[in-house]
C-alpha cells in the first residue's frame, strides 16, 4: 500500500480517536462529580508518562543522560515556581547547552 494511503489511514484513525469521547459525551447526561475528579487526573498522568518516556526510555531500554536529568529537574522547578512555558524551556535548553559545552 502506498505511503500516501497509509498517511491518510492514520490521519482518519487519529481524528476518530480525538473525536471519540466528544461525540459520546454530547449524548450523555452531565458527568457526576466523581467522574470529573477522575477526568482531572488524565492530563497530569499522560503528560508525566510522556516526560519520563522522553527522558530515559530509548528503543525499549533505559538510557540515562546526566545533563538531561539535571536540566529536567531544574526546568521542572522553574515550571513549578513561575508557571511559564518560556522560562521552563529556556532554562532546560540552556542547561543542556552549558553541559554539552563543558563536556
Amino acid at each position: 500500500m502506498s505511503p500516501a494511503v497509509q498517511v491518510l489511514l492514520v490521519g482518519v484513525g487519529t481524528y476518530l480517536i480525538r473525536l471519540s469521547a466528544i461525540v459520546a459525551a454530547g449524548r450523555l447526561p452531565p458527568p457526576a462529580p466523581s467522574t470529573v475528579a477522575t477526568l482531572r487526573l488524565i492530563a497530569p498522568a499522560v503528560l508525566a508518562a510522556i516526560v519520563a518516556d522522553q527522558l530515559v526510555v530509548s528503543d525499549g531500554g533505559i538510557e540515562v543522560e546526566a545533563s538531561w536529568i539535571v536540566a529536567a529537574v531544574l526546568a521542572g522547578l522553574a515550571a513549578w515556581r513561575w508557571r511559564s512555558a518560556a522560562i521552563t524551556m529556556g532554562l532546560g535548553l540552556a542547561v543542556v547547552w552549558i553541559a554539552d559545552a563543558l563536556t
Partner: protein
Amino acid sequence: MSTGLRRDAVLAGAKAATALAVAAFPFGVVYGVTVVESSVDRWVGIAASWLILAGAAQLSLISLIDDGSAWYLAVLTALVINARFALYSTAVAPAFREFPARWRVGLAYLRTDLAAALSLARFDTDSDPDSRRSFVLGAGLFFASGWWVGTVVGVFGGAVIPDELDLSFAVPAMFIALAVPAVTDRPALVAALVAVVVAVAGAPLPNGLNVVVAAVVGIAAGRLVVRSPEVPSS
C-alpha cells in the same frame, strides 16, 4: 446557546501557546529532515503534518514505511501511539458538551497534547462556553502552526540548520512545561508520580505502549487518593 466567537479568548489561547509553538517548530524541523532522509515523498510527509498532526506518530510512521514494514503494522503502530488522544477526548468532553456540534467536531482535529493541557487548565478558571471554545481554537491553531511551519522548513531547508545547535531537549522541555502546572493537588501528584514509574518500568513494551499503560495506571492510583477520606484533596 450562542455561537459568538470571543476574540479576546482566541488571543489568550494563542498567547498561552506561544512558547509551546516555538518549541513545536524545531520538533517539526526534525520531522521534516527525517522525511527528506527517508524514501517517503516530501509532499506526503508534509501532508502527514496536516492529516495526522501528531509528531511521535508521524515519526514512527515515516520510519516504519522507510524500513519497508507491512502497511498494517505501520498504520496500527501510529494509531496505538495516538491512543492517548482518547484520554484527552474524555477529559475535555464535559466542557465540549456545551459547544455547538460543528465546533465539537472541528476542534477535535486540533487536539494535541499541548492544546489539550492548555485547554484543561483554562477550563478551571473560565466557565463561559463561548470563551472556552474560542480559547481552544486559538491555542490549538497557534500550536499546530508551529508544527506545520517547522515541517515545511525541515523538508525544504533542514540542511541549513547548524549541527551544533542541539534542540533535542526542546521536546521533553515542552512537556515538562505542561506537566508540572497540570499537577494541582495531591491526587494529581500521585497520578503523575505513578505514571512516571510505570512509564520507565514499562520501557520494554513495544510501540510506545508504556506511555498509555503508565497513564491508565497513574489515573487509577490518583483515583484511590481521591476516594480515601483521611487524605485531604483540594
